[in-house]
């Protein structure tokens, strides 16, 4: 019971702090978006703008993400193999 109350108080306090960040949610300043929308297709040749960012402008992130996947797959296999 004590733990429940403490957890509840904690979560509510967190909510109060974050409420500020959430209350005035607005779209980000649009310069970057406009660049993607107007120039994205010519620059990368991809009709799907998400793809043109994911694999074009920010392909480095995607490479990192593939590394994460590689790590996780190898990790799962190594951990399971050690079960004997």
């Amino acid at each position, binding site marked *: 019971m004590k733990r429940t109350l403490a957890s509840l108080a904690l979560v509510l306090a967190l909510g109060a702090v974050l409420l500020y960040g959430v209350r005035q949610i607005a779209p980000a300043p649009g310069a970057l978006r406009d660049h993607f929308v107007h120039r994205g297709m010519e620059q990368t*040749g991809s009709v799907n703008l*998400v793809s043109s960012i994911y694999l074009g402008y920010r392909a480095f992130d995607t490479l990192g993400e593939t590394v994460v996947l590689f790590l996780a*797959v190898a990790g799962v296999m190594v951990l399971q193999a050690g079960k004997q």
Partner: protein
Amino acid sequence: MKDSELVDIVSRKLVPFILLFGCYLISHGHLSPGGGFQGGAVLAAGITLLCLSRGVKDTLRTFPMRRVSLSESAAFLMILAMGVIGLVLGRRFLGNFLPLGEPGQVPSAGFIFFLNLLIGLKVGTGISLVMFTLLREDE
């Protein structure tokens, strides 16, 4: 775990279409919603369905662990190679070195198309491998 004929037959008929849909998502990633990751996840879902209906052992006969694992590594090596080719050709690492082609065609958008294919392969094999390893426990 072959106790239901219904599950077995339905999944057997369904899986080819799921895999085909995955391939479609991957190859049209630069044109329509979807892409390498989404298509790869669909591929892995198809294979997971096979595992669930036919059992992991049977599925592994069609997709041997070693081969899947090797093709995952190969896909990653090729993704890395795509980046390095850009570097070697005097452009930047991970810079596009292929012609952009005509927007809207299936092979277009330079190396985005090929990266989609490779990432589809990588994600499909990777998630399948995780599923194989985790599901094999129960047998």
